[in-house]
């Protein structure tokens, strides 16, 4: 949500200066939102999560929910509660296939989104898998105390993780804004729940799993909305989630813990 708002502000600011050439505007917005949104991630970690590092899981979870409500209210206060529209920047597309009246087009916007997603995905996978920072992050996730014992600056690493997460989320916000052309302070809530659901469905901690989960949730909702009812699409998604988890308690691609004691 914050990412989307910073993006729309950037677009409108550029518009004031008469810059509307889409590729440039999008690039600037991307940079601006990826530079400013992570500040929120960092501040959040510092103020809300770090003091709870050694508290029970529940405390962190409640704080997370509380913080998301706080940020929503903050944005609502400073930006107003109404939906903010943005006229579409990227229009048109390529016609892929035509048979009689039936035309399949691929919008430039869709292409842009896919490319952006794939590139970022690859970059972050590489970062997590290959770099020292990524290793340190995984070490912190697996054993915080031991990570500190091998010399990882745990505070910095976790802060870096929050910053990265916020950067990614801000890009998602930018994409949302570009695609739907609107933002309001509430767009994050549903996305958050869906993201969590997708991650769980695919198996927590598995990147391909998260993608598969997201794909499945999206498909289920789309088909359910089309053939049954829009209202109950969430019910359908959650029902499938429950069904899957009954038979695979660690998600589709999640591995059961193989820890030795």
């Amino acid at each position, binding site marked *: 949500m914050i990412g989307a708002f910073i993006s729309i502000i950037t677009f409108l600011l550029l518009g004031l200066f008469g810059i509307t050439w889409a590729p440039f505007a999008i690039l600037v917005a991307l940079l601006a939102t990826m530079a400013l949104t992570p500040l929120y991630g960092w501040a959040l970690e510092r103020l809300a999560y770090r003091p709870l590092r050694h508290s029970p899981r529940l405390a962190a979870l409640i704080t997370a929910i509380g913080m998301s409500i706080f940020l929503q209210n903050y944005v609502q206060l400073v930006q107003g509660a109404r939906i903010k529209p943005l006229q579409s920047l990227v229009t048109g597309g390529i016609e892929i296939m035509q048979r009689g009246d039936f035309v399949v087009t691929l919008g430039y916007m869709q292409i842009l989104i896919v490319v952006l997603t794939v590139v970022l995905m690859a970059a972050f996978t590489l970062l997590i898998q290959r770099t020292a920072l990524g290793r340190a992050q995984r070490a912190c996730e697996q054993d915080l105390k031991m990570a500190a014992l*091998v010399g990882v600056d745990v505070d910095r690493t976790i802060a870096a993780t929050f910053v990265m997460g916020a950067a990614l989320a801000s890009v998602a916000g930018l994409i949302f804004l570009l695609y739907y052309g609107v933002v309001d302070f509430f767009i994050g809530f549903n996305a958050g729940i869906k993201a969590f659901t997708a991650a769980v469905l695919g198996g927590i901690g598995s990147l391909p799993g998260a993608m598969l989960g997201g794909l499945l949730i999206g498909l289920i909702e789309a088909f359910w909305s089309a053939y049954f009812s829009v209202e109950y699409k969430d019910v359908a998604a959650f029902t499938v989630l429950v069904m899957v988890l009954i038979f695979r308690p660690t998600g589709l691609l999640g591995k059961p813990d193989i820890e030795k004691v």
Partner: protein
Amino acid sequence: MTTLLSLSGVRTSYGNIEALHGVDLEVREGEIVTLIGANGAGKSTLLMTVCGNPPVAHGQILFAGRDITRMPTHAIVRLGISQAPEGRRIFPRMTVMENLLMGAVAAPPGAKAPKPNDSAASCEGTPSGVTPAPGLSSGRPAPPAGNGDGAAADLERAFRLFPLLEERREQSGGTLSGGEQQMLAIARALMSRPRLLLLDEPSLGLAPLLVRQIFDAIARLNRDEGTAILLVEQHAHQALRLAHRGYVMANGRIVLSGGGSELLANPEVRAAYLEGGVGVRPAGEGAS
């Protein structure tokens, strides 16, 4: 010998319960020091306290003349103290290779040579001919190219020390056997080329042959590279024979200290910690 690590009057608490009630302890350059004591005496707590977690409530810890009492764990570790903690704590979902690389996080960039700390100078400034030369004691002079190549050299050394690990370099840490995990834990601790190595029960749960191998490795490390070692062990006999000096801990206090053989001969120590092996008197022990 110059003092490398010294604890004076160190008290530590877990919440409201004090686990260390004023511990004084010293490890000198190039020395193996063994710490023995009953379960729950506070040995592991002592080692962890040196690394700043749990924090020192009272008292002072000096490392190479530098006050590390209030430092955060990672800063302490980066000064050249490395620990293979109780329970091994291998990162379970990382490969052996990655675990080792994690150990190199605290490796000094470039040459490790005695750190020219202003405060350390007072202590290190007086070189002693008796110890293995400080240059040696601090591990190999790193290859000039810097961190990357340094890590490569360290990896090579780790694999030389425990060849088994090389075969399993791509296996994930959680699936290693207990013994392999122990080797990995020690190898990981060595990756940062520490000046002081803290080992917490490295022989726990290992087959006798492996225990021997580990003890040999420790001795070799100390002899060849002059790494100072503070060793916590339940195999009191072997550990004391290996050590230059030893401390006995009970109920969060040091109750006895002295040279390794001196402690071995001490009737109280024998009664309390060596009776278990009574059937296997020194001679038998050597054969095991």
